[in-house]
């Protein structure tokens, strides 16, 4: 027989987020270095204020296209040669753009770091954006958009954004652009976007791994000599809701065996002062396996493989979303349970056990999140993008620990808005719409995909 006695925790061992050095180079580039002596590896992550929110109206998709285009050739090397050079060094190379920034990232063995960083500097400082490759990248994005039409998860996310935000908000349109906007982009647009946004004052280089601050500084000074001066452009951003009354949108997918559900409303910007209580509240509501929504939908009812809720934290107010996929015939009862859980967390304090589960998890899991050089670099990028205080990661666990059941209730009543909930369902309208006419769900609108 296995011993029936549950073991007690041992004494806690201290953990610090890796110490990092933060400086502005003479060129105006910000350099953040986190030396981590564990394995002979390093990640270099360059972030630039050149995300989707920086795009001019009508040019949606230009931020991603520009970031992808960086890897397609420089004045010295064409795209195929570039890929070959990085890969002969065993270096992984990736670029992209999200709402708030564009990035280029390499991870490499540390004995190849100088050479790989020099190439990275070339990629980002002297791209030529060849017409043929830009047209190819556009066609690849159009193929991806076409794939979404048969991919219920991606389609549900995209339609949710569209129905959630007012049409003036950049957030209402796909971050990588639509068929219409991408088709209209040109090589000149890419060049223009690059020249107006990729500047030293908008750029941070993050180096994490087996490297000293001195070595990182020398490398980055050498690699970014040709970087144009200039400050970041701070775009005006609207993140208002399309409507303040409940609606249910069914996006018709004939014969779908499941309904892909998104329920939510406009959330909060990342720098909101209630960030910590809101995060703990969400952990209890739908952020953990043991959260109310997952246990209810999955373990009590068996409606789904999984259900969760999250805040998409951006500089502007990103969405608050409950996300799940349920068997078609239980769509209406599943939606009812989600709405009940949102009401319930607003109506009474969570229990002490629920609070301690969420707090202990978020506090305890902290060191597990930063095992890799890429994860440490990503954490530092979040700190830079949202201009969080220098001691943000050192005080994170204390801030979590200070959240009380009262603060969670306060966050739920202040920041969850049941009357404004928008529901998007990608599923078989013929099968499910009859069960969704109850006015409690809101006005029902059926769309043919």
């Amino acid at each position, binding site marked *: 027989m296995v011993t029936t006695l549950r073991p007690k925790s041992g004494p806690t061992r201290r953990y610090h987020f890796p110490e990092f050095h933060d400086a502005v180079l003479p060129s105006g580039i910000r350099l953040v270095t986190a030396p981590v002596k564990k394995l002979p590896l390093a990640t270099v992550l360059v972030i630039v204020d050149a995300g989707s929110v920086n795009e001019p109206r009508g040019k949606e998709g230009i931020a991603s296209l520009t970031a992808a285009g960086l890897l397609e050739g420089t004045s010295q090397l064409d795209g195929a040669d570039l890929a070959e050079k990085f890969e002969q060094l065993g270096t992984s190379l990736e670029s992209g753009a999200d709402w708030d920034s564009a990035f280029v990232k390499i991870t490499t063995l540390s004995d190849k770091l100088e050479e790989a960083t020099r190439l990275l500097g070339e990629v980002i400082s002297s791209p030529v954006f060849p017409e043929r490759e830009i047209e190819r990248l556009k066609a690849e994005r159009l193929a991806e958009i076409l794939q979404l039409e048969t991919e219920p998860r991606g389609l549900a996310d995209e339609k949710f954004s569209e129905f959630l935000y007012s049409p003036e908000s950049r957030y209402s349109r796909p971050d990588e652009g639509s068929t219409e906007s991408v088709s209209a982009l040109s090589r000149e647009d890419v060049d223009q976007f690059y020249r107006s946004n990729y500047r030293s004052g908008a750029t941070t280089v993050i180096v994490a791994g087996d490297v000293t601050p001195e070595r990182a500084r020398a490398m980055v000074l050498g690699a970014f000599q040709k970087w144009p001066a200039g400050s970041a452009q701070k775009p005006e951003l609207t993140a208002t809701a399309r409507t303040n009354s409940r609606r249910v949108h069914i996006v018709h997918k004939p014969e779908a065996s499941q309904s892909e559900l998104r329920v939510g409303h406009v959330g909060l910007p990342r720098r909101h002062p209630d960030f910590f209580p809101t995060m703990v509240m969400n952990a209890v509501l739908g952020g953990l396996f043991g959260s109310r929504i997952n246990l209810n939908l999955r373990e009590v009812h068996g409606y789904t*493989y999984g259900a969760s809720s999250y805040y998409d934290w951006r500089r502007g107010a990103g969405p608050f979303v409950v996300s799940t996929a349920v068997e078609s015939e239980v769509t209406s009862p599943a939606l009812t349970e989600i709405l009940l859980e949102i009401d319930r967390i607003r109506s009474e304090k969570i229990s002490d056990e629920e609070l301690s589960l969420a707090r202990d998890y978020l506090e305890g899991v902290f060191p*597990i999140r930063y095992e890799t050089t890429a994860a440490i670099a990503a954490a530092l990028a979040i700190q830079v993008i949202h201009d969080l205080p220098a001691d943000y990661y050192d005080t994170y666990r204390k801030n979590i620990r200070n959240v009380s059941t009262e603060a969670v209730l306060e966050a739920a009543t202040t920041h969850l808005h049941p009357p404004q909930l928008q529901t998007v369902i990608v599923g078989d309208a013929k099968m499910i719409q009859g069960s969704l006419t109850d006015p409690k769900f809101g006005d029902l609108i059926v769309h043919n995909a």
Partner: protein
Amino acid sequence: MGLHGGQFTTMRIPIEIFQLDNGLFVTLSEDHTAPIVAVNLWYHVGSANERSGRTGFAHLFEHMLFQGSAHVGSNEHFELIQRAGGTLNGSTWLERTNYFETVPSNELALALWLEADRMGELLPAMTQEKLDTQRDVVKNERRWAVDNQPYGTMLEKMQELVFPPSHPFQHSLIGSMEDLTAASLDDVAQFFSTYYTPDNAVLSIAGDFDAAEARRLVSEYFRPIPRGKGKPPLPPMSLPPVFGKQLREVVHDDVSLPRLFKAFRSPVFGSEKYYAASVASAILGLRKGSRLHRSLVRERQIAADASAFTFDLAKGTDLLVIDVTARPETGSTQLEEEVEREIDLLYREGVTEPEVKRAIALIETDLVVSLQSAGERADRLSMFATYFNRPELINEQADRYREVTAERVNALVSERFGQDNRASLLYVPKEGVESERALAAAASAD
């Protein structure tokens, strides 16, 4: 203390092994860079061990292992680990099932105790109600990951196409709805007592712990669990090196773009020839400098995406798979022809030394990247111990890859890439709406 061994070429992670009298094989690997520890348990049972009419059972069973045991309530395993600040999950594959936790290092005892309680005393906690709920959850997992997802049937269609009927790898891993419905509590009990025994498992612990303390805890919690009564042998697994004919299946499905999966029988994971096959796969389809990406995506622009990978099966035969998605204006016939042409070219002319170097450099970096996480280290230790009784193989992988030459890759290519060893699984959009959409998009892309 870090894991540096000076030169990268001599990098080794430390490994200790021991075995309990009941047969449980244990591997330990210390690293004190962060106060976290990973516990990882491999049971040497997967969908290959299922009897006919019970497909999907190994995976359904994995769900049941989170439904409580003698001293742990339903879902309490999840709660206790998350409350401790840990992460956890389990997964099922053709040849094995694994369970894993990464926790703050002061919670090692909890993770070990939970694993021991369910290895030793799962059955007292099993009820029909729990089985019914998890059956529904798994059916929804099937709908979510397989039936309602474009190309989601790839794994089961591929297994069916490339393995002969009655071969243990031939049937679906997640299982059919009918078989899931038929699974009973008796099946649960029988499967548990046959396969979830200490002598059919490997336990690995990696990260921040004291070896003496870990040995004491493992011994206290796992020693009382009795050895199993042995498991039925798998039917013969071995297969000829090639299919012996061309295999082809076309699936008309709710997808937007044609996508071709091309499979080859390939040397089993861990064998000497496996490393040459793995390098061949990287030359063909790892990253943007690979042949397929360069040729089909960049130069000829007929594909939206191209990659290649191996299944890493350790018994019978492995599979090397090429995966190419067409651009909207590329028809499925053209897609097949262009991919065939690339394979013919490889078969005819072989690979070059720089291609081999590129592949090995990328694989080496990926190996080191994977060793950063305690959970990955523990998982690989369990894997090498389960398949080969040699956890120290984790430290030999970079050397094994570095020994691969163009000559060895070319020998492998001549043996495995001929016309007699190609299987095509081709997805094409269902007639009607999708193809019209594809044409419209192709037109607007001009």
